[in-house]
């Protein structure tokens, strides 16, 4: 319990520090930081439209952050969630447009299942390369993101194009109900929450979850006790891909209603940030995802109300993550000295 309190305190401290550095940047360009942050907050929560937009932005981040975290639990650094969102989205769009012979409830299922299958298959490639041949997954997943982006971009400007000036597909025949019009918040958020709860339960309460944690902690130990660490690693990456696929499906069916070129840019990396800041702690990740989506959706309001560019928000989150990764940064000098002393005494 003490550890939980400690990590919460750490996160809050980091948050304050990041916002402080952001404030300095705002001062540096001659604006008032208090006004900017108030505008940011208003931009995220003030009124039905803005609150709804924040929720709509939160939905994919929740899924992508958990997707990154689950892969990290198995020891993978899966930067490829973004590509998986793209491919899940395009698959959902294809099925949603073309498989109209299915009855409606089945069509919903088919969209989600298709998105999950394709995204999982995409995640399988870097996972298998890493597990069996030691190919660094950070490199492959980053490069494959770009490949996925171009594949979908080709499809919506070529074979699946709606023929409009914007590269986009035809509208899908099934959509998720939007409950906060005119914003695009939709019932996908409940699907996302349910999926995330399931994944967290699975990780902590099932033997498969235990295997994933064991492999992430020490693959050699896992192999020694009879867990096929390679297979578990790959399955965790594929699960991570599936979550990305679901996010893509919700975006297409819930937010846009069609596949929009480039729609997922930043979704994967922001999810990764949310997860990295809390060191892939599954319980904290959703809250961090929410915080980041508030920052994101408030940024536009801030740019309009004050002269502060909205890229400031990305700068703050980047500073946030850099400080958060420094594991020993907040063990202050006194404490460190005490630790050193303790070590010497035991030795």
């Amino acid at each position, binding site marked *: 319990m003490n550890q939980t309190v400690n990590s919460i305190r750490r996160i809050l401290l980091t948050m304050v520090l990041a916002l402080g550095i952001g404030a300095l940047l705002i001062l540096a360009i001659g604006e008032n930081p208090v006004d900017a942050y108030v505008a940011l907050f208003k931009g995220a929560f003030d009124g039905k439209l803005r609150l709804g937009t924040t929720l709509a932005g939160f939905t994919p981040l929740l899924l992508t952050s958990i997707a990154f975290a689950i892969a990290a639990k198995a020891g993978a650094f899966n930067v490829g969630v973004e590509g998986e969102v793209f491919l899940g989205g395009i698959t959902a769009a294809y099925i949603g447009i073309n498989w109209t012979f299915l009855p409606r409830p089945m069509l919903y299922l088919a969209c989600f299942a298709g998105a999950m299958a394709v995204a999982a298959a995409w995640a399988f490639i870097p996972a298998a390369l890493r597990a069996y041949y030691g190919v660094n997954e950070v490199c492959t997943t980053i*490069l494959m993101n770009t490949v996925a982006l171009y594949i979908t971009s080709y499809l919506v400007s070529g074979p699946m194009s709606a023929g409009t000036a914007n590269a986009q597909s035809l509208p899908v025949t099934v959509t998720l109900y939007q409950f906060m019009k005119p914003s695009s918040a939709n019932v996908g958020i409940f699907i996302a929450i349910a999926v995330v709860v399931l994944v967290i339960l699975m990780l902590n309460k099932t033997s498969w979850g235990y295997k994933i944690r064991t492999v992430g902690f020490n693959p050699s130990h896992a192999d020694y006790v009879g867990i096929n660490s390679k297979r578990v690693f790959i399955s965790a990456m594929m699960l991570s891909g599936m979550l990305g696929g679901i996010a893509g499906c919700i975006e297409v069916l819930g937010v846009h209603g069609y596949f929009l070129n480039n729609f997922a840019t930043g979704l994967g990396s922001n999810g990764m940030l949310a997860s990295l800041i809390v060191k892939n702690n599954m319980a904290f990740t959703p809250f961090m995802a929410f915080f980041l989506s508030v920052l994101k959706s408030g940024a536009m309001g801030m740019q309009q109300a004050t002269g502060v560019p909205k890229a400031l928000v990305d700068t703050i989150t980047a500073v946030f993550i850099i400080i958060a990764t420094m594991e020993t940064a907040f063990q202050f000098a006194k404490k460190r000295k005490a630790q050193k002393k303790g070590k010497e005494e035991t030795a």
Partner: protein
Amino acid sequence: MNAILENFDKIFNVSLVYATFRSATPIIFAALCAAITQQANILNIGTEGIMLVGAFTAVTVSYFSGSWFLGIVAAMIAGAIISMIMAVGHIRYNSEICAIGMGINMLALAITKFLVKAIFNSTGSFSSPDIKAIPRVNLAFLDSIPVLGELFNDWCVTEWFAIILIIFLQFLFYKTVWGLRLRAVGQFPEAAKTAGIRVNSVKYQAMLISGLIGGLAGAHLSLGYSTQFIENMTNNRGFMGVAAMYFGGANPVFTALGCLLFGFSDSIGARLQAYGIPSQFVLMMPYIVTVAVLSISMVAKLSAGRKRESALHSGN
């Protein structure tokens, strides 16, 4: 497809050699930036970010000072600062290198976007005739020689420098005491420590030099390869560099050869686009080639390693 075969000689000609080298140079610098830290067993995932900050700094300083040289120097210093943030985080405060590296990449993307807006009040890109580009080397006597002239004339100064840097680093890694220490730190830090090498100090030095090279990579990209700054203009070249570094096992010469392969696929793609190949396929080609080449080289290394092991056992 027919069109491609008919115009085969237009696609594969002498100018392709320089085109390949030209698109490979930014990646070569990036790969060297990653190679030097890899020798000290630090995976420099932040190469992309270092490069982007370098590119922005180079354009800004060149624009305000009117000197491309000052632009390069400033870019190298900026790259070193960014890389030192990463070094302090990783070495002093125990950050996971991938995590802080990705953080650095995000920071670079965000802060350049922010500064382009704050300094030049433009979004997306910044270009101006006042940005002084890195000059090209024109050797007058080559003009009259047909093939050599086309191959070697009018190279950018930094393109020549890339070749010097490859040779220099090769020498530094494998023929100097410093290089020996660097590799010792990377391969067996405990042994290096026992031998009296200050491990962390060597790591900091490697990161510092890596930052200088990464900044230069960015400066070449924004002042040599093109003369402008575009948001996210590195476009994953940093990661391609890291992949090439893996391909070459952090050996500068092999690493550079890997980069040429990506440069080749890039410039072939650009030519094929004229003959009806969809642009997206052309654009994704270097990425696919990178992943494929990286995988093949790792598979080959693994099987070579296994063979060596089994030879050892049968020898006993």
